[in-house]
């Protein structure tokens, strides 16, 4: 199945002996000229790339105080060394968070610190060379910016910020990553990561309306570009395209339908994802975020709700207001923006949804906390809400639920292995190896508690698991969307399911219940 060694799942997660350079060869395709220029970067590596890189590093150090602090304060205590899923899966020393940071830190010392300028050897400072640039390109694309290491760092050093800075520097010198940059360009031109044009989107949504009606007998709408709707739903375009994502989208539609709210999708903002964050580019992140503002204004909505997308929720929850605000034109009585899980959870608490848990009895669920939700955002306005709310939603629609081991969930969650711009076929080896710690925890609950399925609220996690589960002896369809579970259980008013439950099936014209 694979032309590389798939890590073996053991009874316990073992900390491996560090090796040198074993995944140095894993580097993604470099962006083509057009992918670069669409984002305002040079077509290819510029002649004076070293000067440009150092100048950019200086610029970032001046702009982001955190970056300078993170590069200065590491004491090499080693607390992070065994916390990265890519290190655990590859054994490459440069995938230890401190090792990864050092790749940039050594160059920083050489050009920006007194000791490094005059006594480089004494302080481990090195010149920026082509070899160093290649190492950056490899290892800063073996980091999913999941921030698990930062939870365990006594100083809170955030390797994700260092990776983002490194990627921004590489973009500015003309060595960007094809996957991320091509995708960002598509959003600018077409409106979403997939490149799904408006007519195709409209056709897809129409098909989903038909499917829901076939299943339930109820006309549930998935409106597109409807002016005057109350709610704008911004969701990852994978929800229109891939499985199990699309089952989640149908779940959101059913929830909105039952809530009796008016809502719409937008072809202008048909993408929740914001890959600008992955490449560390404030300008591109802002440009992408502004599309959502524009759509909200053009459609005249009062609220913005985000679908199941991990890093989109980080950008939305933590940065949207400063990137694309102020959102004073929205209804201030609701969270701005709101997560679909918050929306559904509120309805569940108010007893406004009729849910038949038995529809999910063929499964025993566990929940995979997506890194950007777990460590980069919140939910529900209370501490830990991002852990509680999705689980409460699952438990409200499923009878069987078991969490994975404590040290692999909540803010200690292991990344799926495909986040941060790594969800591309050219990085399959690192994706599979990085998935190992999560797969190990999954196997444990499978064996001990009979867990059959893994639910997630992130498009990347879902696609990554669909692809990597089979490498570890699982089935691709064991990954499900949280709102897919909601979709299974929800009993729509006037539906065939309602009639069946109430014993009124077959009675003409009267499906009212007491």
């Amino acid at each position: 199945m694979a032309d590389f060694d798939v890590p073996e799942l053991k009874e316990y997660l073992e900390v491996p002996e560090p090796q040198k350079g074993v995944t140095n060869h894993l580097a993604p395709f470099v962006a083509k000229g057009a992918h670069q220029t669409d984002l305002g970067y040079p077509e290819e590596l510029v002649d004076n790339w070293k000067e440009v890189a150092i100048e950019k590093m200086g610029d970032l150090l001046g702009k982001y105080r955190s970056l300078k602090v993170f590069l200065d304060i590491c004491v090499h205590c080693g607390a992070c060394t065994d916390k990265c899923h890519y290190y655990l899966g590859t054994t490459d020393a440069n995938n230890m968070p401190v090792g990864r940071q050092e790749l940039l830190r050594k160059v920083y010392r050489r050009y920006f610190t007194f000791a490094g300028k005059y006594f480089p050897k004494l302080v481990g400072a090195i010149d920026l060379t082509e070899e160093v640039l290649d190492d950056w390109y490899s290892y800063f694309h073996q980091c999913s910016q999941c921030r698990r290491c930062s939870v365990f760092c006594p100083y809170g050093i955030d390797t994700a910020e260092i990776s983002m800075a490194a990627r921004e520097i590489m973009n500015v010198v003309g060595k960007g990553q094809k996957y991320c940059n091509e995708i960002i360009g598509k959003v600018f031109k077409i409106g979403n990561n997939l490149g799904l044009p408006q007519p195709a989107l409209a056709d897809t949504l129409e098909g989903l309306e038909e499917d829901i009606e076939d299943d339930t007998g109820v006309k549930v709408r998935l409106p597109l570009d409807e002016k005057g709707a109350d709610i704008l739903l911004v969701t990852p375009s994978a929800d229109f395209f891939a499985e199990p994502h699309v089952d989640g989208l149908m779940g959101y539609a059913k929830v909105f339908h039952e809530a009796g709210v008016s809502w719409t999708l937008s072809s202008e903002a048909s993408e929740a994802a914001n890959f600008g964050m992955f490449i560390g580019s404030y300008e591109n992140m802002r440009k992408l975020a502004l599309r959502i503002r524009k759509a909200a204004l053009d459609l005249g909505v009062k609220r913005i709700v985000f679908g199941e997308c991990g890093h989109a929720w980080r950008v939305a929850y933590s940065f949207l207001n400063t990137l694309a605000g102020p959102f004073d034109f929205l209804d201030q009585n609701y969270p701005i923006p709101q997560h679909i899980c918050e929306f559904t959870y509120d309805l569940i608490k108010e007893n406004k949804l009729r849910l038949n848990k038995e529809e999910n009895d063929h499964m025993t669920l566990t929940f995979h906390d997506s890194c950007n939700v777990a460590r980069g955002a919140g939910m529900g306005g209370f501490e830990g809400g991002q852990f509680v709310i999705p689980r409460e939603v699952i438990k409200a629609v499923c009878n069987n639920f078991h969490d994975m081991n404590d040290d692999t969930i909540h803010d200690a969650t292991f990344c799926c292995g495909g986040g941060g711009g790594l969800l591309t076929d050219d990085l399959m080896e690192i994706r599979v190896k990085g998935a190992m710690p999560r797969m190990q925890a999954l196997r444990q609950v499978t064996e001990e508690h009979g867990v059959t399925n893994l639910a997630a609220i992130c498009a990347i996690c879902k696609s990554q698991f669909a692809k990597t589960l089979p490498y570890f002896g699982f089935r691709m369809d064991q990954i499900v969307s949280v709102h897919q579970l909601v979709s299974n259980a929800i009993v729509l008013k006037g539906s065939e399911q309602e009639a069946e439950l109430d014993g009124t099936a077959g009675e003409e014209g009267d499906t009212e219940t007491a």
Partner: protein
Amino acid sequence: MAIEVNGKSLEVDEEGYLADLNQWEPEVATIMAKEDGTELTDAHWEVINFLREYYEEYQIAPAVRVLTKAIGKKLGKEKGNSKYLYELFPYGPAKQACKYAGLPKPTGCV
């Protein structure tokens, strides 16, 4: 990179997708499949032809669900599911079948 089809050299990208959609001809699919060790059957062609028709209309490959539904309508309900499509195209219907059909690879979180 390029592939040889009927004496012509057609440019492909790093992952083997045709650079110019207009250069596609049925032989392209046959040759690409052969490289993957697959012999194309009528069942494969049903999918490939549908992908090309859909692309022509919408300028994008169809969503997996759209594809399974269309195949189900054409070939019977038992074939209208992704399991059937994965049996035909083990690397994923969206990606492998698109490649054979000469369409660009779907990008994003898919």
